[in-house]
């Protein structure tokens, strides 16, 4: 898994590439916790090059979303979600918890 963070004026773009499983989910949690700890609660997860996500990754996503949405201070949105990953998010009931944009541009523009 590779994480690339690009800060924008109103949000942060976090590109997650490769595989999020029990081995790599702690790194994703650490990266996202660092963002929210610095007071940045508007986060875009770019999944365009994400190959796989297990329940360990979904746990990270839901816990960070709970933190970001608290007091209406922000939220996590998703961009460029591959079809297989979307199926996992849909089965888990996550498509109601996260806005999903077709591309990064639309997601950045939403904030």
């Amino acid at each position, binding site marked *: 898994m590779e994480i690339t963070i690009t800060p924008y004026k109103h949000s942060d773009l976090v590109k997650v590439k490769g*595989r999020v*499983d*029990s*081995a790599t989910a702690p790194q994703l949690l650490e990266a996202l916790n660092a963002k929210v700890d610095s007071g940045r609660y508007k986060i875009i997860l770019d999944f365009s090059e994400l190959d*796989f996500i*297990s*329940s*360990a990754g*979904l*746990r990270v996503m*839901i*816990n960070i*979303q*709970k933190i970001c*949405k608290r007091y209406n201070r922000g939220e996590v949105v998703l961009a460029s979600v591959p*079809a*297989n990953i979307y*199926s*996992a998010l849909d*089965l*888990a*009931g996550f498509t109601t*918890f996260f806005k999903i944009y077709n591309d990064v541009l639309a997601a950045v523009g939403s904030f």
Partner: protein
Amino acid sequence: MTTVVFPGRYDSLAKIGEFIRRAATEAGFDSLATYTVETAVDEACSNIIEHAYGGEKRGDIECTCNETDDKLTIILCDQGESFTPEEVTEPDLSLALEDRDDHGLGLYFMRRWMDEIHFEHPPGGGNTVIMVKHKARIA
């Protein structure tokens, strides 16, 4: 039938995933069906490391893929403590974000995405998980 033994560590999961993807692709499963099998096996192996072994580097995971005309069967064996996943309840998808529990999704994926799952406790100890995906029901 192919069997590979992987060390019970989380960094084995990517290699286990490769092994499963190859078996599912060779069995003729499409991209989504292959993804569902890879997910189910990843979740089962993560559970073995976390719950049967109680942590990493305490034992191996023996992974067998057996393709027949109508199905792909995956058998996972460990030598850890017996655990009873039947007792884990399914997540309540109707709950609002703040009330949703962050656990229970692994078994939920296994149950929903495989056609059959059997948990066995062999007399010699450990656990055996048998998961079946039928070719006729490829998602």
